[in-house]
């Protein structure tokens, strides 16, 4: 477990950060927020590359930083693997030597996946004899992931590892990140400002704004909170953990806690766990069971709450379907016309084709 508390100010009247959060034993915690909210600073403090005005960092009971007690373990002895935005591979060393750089310096009793295993996991076997200059951006980032993992860290820190890549390269690297997360069995702190990456990779979310922690919790829980800046985004909506249950008529059936959905055909095998982001603007409600509709997904739900939306004439409906919650964005007019109120039984309508916006496998 990682516990982080810090306070830091750049210059006398500069940007200030005051944040604290904890990371569980394993799994990905995303530090999410707009550029300049202090997420990279927090990561640098945990890695030991920046000393804050005040701070305390404890990893699995070992104090890495405690400014009050003048304790600061240098980065080379913290065993925090870091993946930087710009790969930072050593240009004068081959890919194989880059990968072995941390491995050679890891304590002999440190446990972790072996060289061959990591090379296989990231599909970088053909790159081993090459120099970093001869790699594409995506390949470089995959090697950087391997290098960090092979240093046998106790914690992996990722500082916007996909931000420097174009969309195609991001799509190339993302599945490898997911594989690494599943293989590493380490706590991972993942800094990003891209919601797709949160949906695809993160278990928990720490939401930052102007150097303060706004909220922390599971990705699913925070996604349906309408009081957070997440709700103001165009892609605001619920995140549902689903399992591929079967395929029929060119559609895939996905089960979630409390019901099931059909989506356009997915390539994943039956039993694969996925995460769906169901955007609030793609969900409509009806007070009577609709008939003769092209919409495939008509789910019985109950209005759990009605909260102010991001626009003046808009509201968010929180729809309870069993233990799961969906978010729907409707107009104030619809609320009064249909007499929507908490506790009312309604039907949630979702077109099957609206699931093109998907998180990766989990």
């Amino acid at each position: 477990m990682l516990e982080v508390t810090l306070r830091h100010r750049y210059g006398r009247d500069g940007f200030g950060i005051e944040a604290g959060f904890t990371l569980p034993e394993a799994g990905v915690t995303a530090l999410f927020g707009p550029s300049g909210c202090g997420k990279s600073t927090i990561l640098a403090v945990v890695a030991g590359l920046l000393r804050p005005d005040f701070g305390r960092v404890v990893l699995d009971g070992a104090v890495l930083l405690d400014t009050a007690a003048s304790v600061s373990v240098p980065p080379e002895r913290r065993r925090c693997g870091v993946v930087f935005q710009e790969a930072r591979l050593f240009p004068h060393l081959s890919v194989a030597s880059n990968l072995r750089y941390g491995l050679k310096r890891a304590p002999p009793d440190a446990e972790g996946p072996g060289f061959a295993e990591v090379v296989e996991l990231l599909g970088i076997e053909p790159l081993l004899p090459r120099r970093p200059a001869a790699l594409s951006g995506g390949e470089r980032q995959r090697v950087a992931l391997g290098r960090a993992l092979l240093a046998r860290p106790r914690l992996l820190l990722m500082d916007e590892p996909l931000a420097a890549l174009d969309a195609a390269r991001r799509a190339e690297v993302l599945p490898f990140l997911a594989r690494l997360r599943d293989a590493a069995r380490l706590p991972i702190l993942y800094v990003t400002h891209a919601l797709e990456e949160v949906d695809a990779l993160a278990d928990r979310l720490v939401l930052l704004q102007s150097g303060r922690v706004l909220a922390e919790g599971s990705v699913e829980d925070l996604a349906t909170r309408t009081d957070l800046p997440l709700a103001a985004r165009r892609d605001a909506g619920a995140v549902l953990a689903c399992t591929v249950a079967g395929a029929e008529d060119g559609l895939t059936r996905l089960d979630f806690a409390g019901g099931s959905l059909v989506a356009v055909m997915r390539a994943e095998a039956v039993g694969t766990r996925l995460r769906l982001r169901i955007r609030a603007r793609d969900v409509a409600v009806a007070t009577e069971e609709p008939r003769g509709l092209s919409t495939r997904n008509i789910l019985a739900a109950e209005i759990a709450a009605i909260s102010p939306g991001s626009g003046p004439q808009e509201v968010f409906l929180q729809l309870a379907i069993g233990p799961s919650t969906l978010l729907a964005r409707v107009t104030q007019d619809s609320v009064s016309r249909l007499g929507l109120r908490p506790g009312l039984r309604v039907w949630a309508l979702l077109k099957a084709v609206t699931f093109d916006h998907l998180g990766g496998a989990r």
Partner: protein
Amino acid sequence: MELTAEEWLAVRLSLEVALRSVALGLVPGVAVAVLLVRGRFPGRFLLDALVHLPLVVPPVVVGWALLMLFGLRGPIGAPLHDWFGIRLVFTTEGAALATAVMSFPLIVRAVRLGLEHVDPGLEAAARTLGAGWWDRFLTITLPLMAPGILAGAVTAFAAGLGEFGAVITFASNIPGETQTLPLAIYTATQSPGGEAVAARLAGISLALAVAGLLLAELIARRMHVLLGRV
């Protein structure tokens, strides 16, 4: 073109003095460059100025200062002579020392340029991978600044072949001991009928300088390939 034994001696001595001066100045040059680029300590500007002094002070004055410090009664020269039996004035070693002091700023400047091209982010990455200060200096910083070190060494060597004022002041003009090429050329111009000798030696000086530059260019290209910059 026939060279006399004495002229050959001057050529060989020049090469030896220049080589020794580089050997003497390279490690301290790298150390001072690292201190100046990465160090944060009071007196950094003073060190910077001190290192660059030989560039702006007349070489004769540098030679004189060395004479004061390393002379047989100087504060450094006396203990060196009394305790270790080392005498620097009027010796080949002394000529190398004078040359090293003169070319020291050239080494520091070139190494500094090389070091400024090394991304500190790479050193930070090496740190997170478990490399301590010396470890990452030797495995990351030093190889990546090698082109700067090489450039500094070659420039210092080439300049060292031609050092005159400081050498003649500190080490004097002794054939076979401290009479390097420029000193031999000077001596030739001062003696009646020495024009032909001076011309031959000047030609050799020129050839050595050009050969040095070509060699440096060749090695620099190799190095860029080795460092993965192509």
